[in-house]
């Protein structure tokens, strides 16, 4: 029996993982306090999960599995509040955002587990540079074949997820000119990119087994693909999103993933498209660099399309596939944000322009995370 048996799960159910920044409240640099904060949060947790991540300055929260957006959002908010209360006891701040704007990666400490130490040894400085913060969206699938088909279909929308979530314009103290600089850190890993051109679960298993025999990987965890199957959960996992500045936005992104998946499956769109993968890397770059302003290459139509327009069309298209009224509302909110060019990255740049201090930017990030309101200070 292969380790890759796909565990069936209820289609279009959804779960979210968020990697959060732990910062000190003095200069708002990253603080290596995960091992102090984790046990405090674990004791208070009603539902969901908290996990350590590779460096001591990251904390991952994970929701349970949800059918509808309203429940998802409620759990995200309660997780946020539990973490905030405990962080406050230790005088720590919690912030969203895909990357810390000014941390020096040389300062990071690796969380003491055998796997993380192994990764640190294998990847050297890449492991520490990987102190970036992403949102992972899990979508339930009834079979492995469905999962493979859905991954190929969703690949077309990777730029959309990137542009919607982009929240890492600053890195190592400078403006990178990227909307999402975080994904550049992911690109450095040899096993990043997209799922190979397999057509079904059986083909995927053959691929995986050969990679394992060649000792390139030992488990699914060693692939850093943008969307990867997660057979033990029975889900596909969209991994390109930056952690947004608020849990509300994170919930909306999940609602988008959920509605998009349902739309693609129920309208029978997608499947493996070799043409798409020819321009995949390039479109992905455009989305990281320009966000909503990107002009994507459309292989079918052999022309450029404005990501903003395509995104608005897509949001309109998938709206009727939303899980519930609250999900549809979240999609409308996203559309409104896209229209008025209000990305998290834009907000971060504007905050920096006002305060001219990246430390103040992170302080504002903490406030926004806590309040859920991404408004500019008067």
């Amino acid at each position, binding site marked *: 029996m292969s380790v890759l048996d796909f565990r069936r799960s209820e289609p279009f159910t959804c779960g979210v993982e968020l990697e959060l920044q732990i910062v*000190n409240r003095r200069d708002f640099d990253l603080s*290596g306090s995960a091992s*102090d904060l984790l046990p405090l949060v674990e004791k208070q947790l009603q539902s969901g999960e908290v996990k350590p991540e590779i460096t001591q300055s990251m904390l991952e929260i994970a929701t349970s599995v949800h059918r509808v957006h309203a429940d998802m959002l409620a759990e995200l908010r309660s997780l946020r509040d539990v973490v905030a209360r*405990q962080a*406050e006891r230790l*005088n720590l701040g919690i912030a969203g955002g895909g990357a810390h704007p000014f941390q020096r990666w040389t300062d990071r*400490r690796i969380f003491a587990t055998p796997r993380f130490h192994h990764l640190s040894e294998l990847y050297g400085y890449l492991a520490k540079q990987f102190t970036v913060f992403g949102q992972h969206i899990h979508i339930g699938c009834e079979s492995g074949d469905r999962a493979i088909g859905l991954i190929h279909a969703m690949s077309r929308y990777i730029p959309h997820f990137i542009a919607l979530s982009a929240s890492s314009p600053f890195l190592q103290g400078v403006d990178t000119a990227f909307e999402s600089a975080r994904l550049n850190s992911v690109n450095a890993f040899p096993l990043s990119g997209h799922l190979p051109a397999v057509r079904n679960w059986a083909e995927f298993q053959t691929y995986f087994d050969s990679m394992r025999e060649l000792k390139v990987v030992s488990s699914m965890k060693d692939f850093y693909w943008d969307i990867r199957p997660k057979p033990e959960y029975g889900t596909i996992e969209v991994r390109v999103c930056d952690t947004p500045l608020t849990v509300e936005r994170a919930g909306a992104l999940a609602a988008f993933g959920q509605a998009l998946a349902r739309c693609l499956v129920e309208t029978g769109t997608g499947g493996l498209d070799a043409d798409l993968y020819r321009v995949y890397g390039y479109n992905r770059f455009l989305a990281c660099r320009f966000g909503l302003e990107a002009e994507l290459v459309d292989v079918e139509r052999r022309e450029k399309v404005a990501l903003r327009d395509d995104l608005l069309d897509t949001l309109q298209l998938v709206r009727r596939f939303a899980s519930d009224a609250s999900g549809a509302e979240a999609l409308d909110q996203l559309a409104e944000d896209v229209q008025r060019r209000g990305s998290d990255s834009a907000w971060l740049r504007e905050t920096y322009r006002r305060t*001219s201090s990246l*430390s103040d930017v992170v*302080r504002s990030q903490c406030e926004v995370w806590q309040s859920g309101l991404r408004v500019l200070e008067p």
Partner: protein
Amino acid sequence: MTSLDFLPTFPLVPGDLALIGAILLVGLVSGELFRRLLRLPRISGYLLVGIALGPGALDLLDRELLATARVVLDVALGLILYELGSRLDLGWVRRNRWLLMTSVAESALCFALVYAALLWLAVSPLHAAVAAAIAMGSAPSVLLLVIHDERAEGALTEQALNLTALNNIFAVVAVTMLLAYMHLEYQAGVHIMLLHPVYLLLGSLAVGYAAAALTVLFAGWLGKREDLQFVMLVSMVLLAVGSALALRVSVLLTLLAFGVLARNRDQRRCLLPVEFGPAAQFFFVALFVLTGAYLEWKDLTLVGGAALVYVGARVAGKLLGILVFAPLTGLRLRKAALLGLVLTPMAAVAVVLVQMTTEIYPAFGAELGAIVLSAVVVLALLGPVAAQLAFRLAGETRQGAAR
């Protein structure tokens, strides 16, 4: 000009400045040797050079030179106390009530145990009380230097900074209030007995407040320029130390108040966090070498037993208070125990407090010094080792820190 008058006359007489420079260099080298050869904190090296060259031993750094260098000590300590004060986050102390409880408990238990132990050794109640009040404070210089050297950061580091700032405030205020009893003992008259401590407390607070208000104002005007704010801060610290000396209020309390108020009154966050950087190293070396010179080896041999009782009672009090209350703040028990270790060092502040009483009542100060300074020798030499070890065991040092 007829002869070679422009040449120096022999034998050369090195000026005070040259001597102080040379002594600091020896201190620097000794600190590095401690780090490289013995893998011990540099502080122990600086201190030992101070003790060895000081009036108690080789007498190269004699009392006269020590008085000249006093200004360096005051400025160095001023900068350190300012930074310590600015690390105290009053908002956090308000939000996490257990933190304040921990602080009160460790300070109070420390005072009580040391006081009781000294009474048991038949020390007079007033001497015992002042010595116990001094015992409450942990060395800010040692803490900041070890944090600086190890680039420590984390929950224990944060609590250590806040607790040290608080216990130094308690210690300085308590010693100042005990002045009233000293005046009573030496029959100085009721008005002096009451007025002196009140003047010291209010005067220091006023100078500290003024300095903080000015600093926040300047910072807002200068903008977030690290280089400019650095110059401004050092100038303000000099100004505050100078004003405190001129007004004959407590330099320690003034600078602590300055730091605390500057950080906590800066609503618009104009002030950048202090990073004295390499300049800090200079003041650390100066501070510890000079502190060493004020300590005397004979103190240790003279009252060895009493010093050990003092040290034991102090460490027990702090550890007990911390072990009971720190876990309630959210710190794990193991880290709480290590936090207790971090708070053990005593150094310059204790020396300066003894000095203060000596200036007012020399006889009292001499007796007090015999009790306190011998303990400080022990805690200044072993404390940094304990603190460094604690940070490492707590996993709060950063890789590549040991340069």
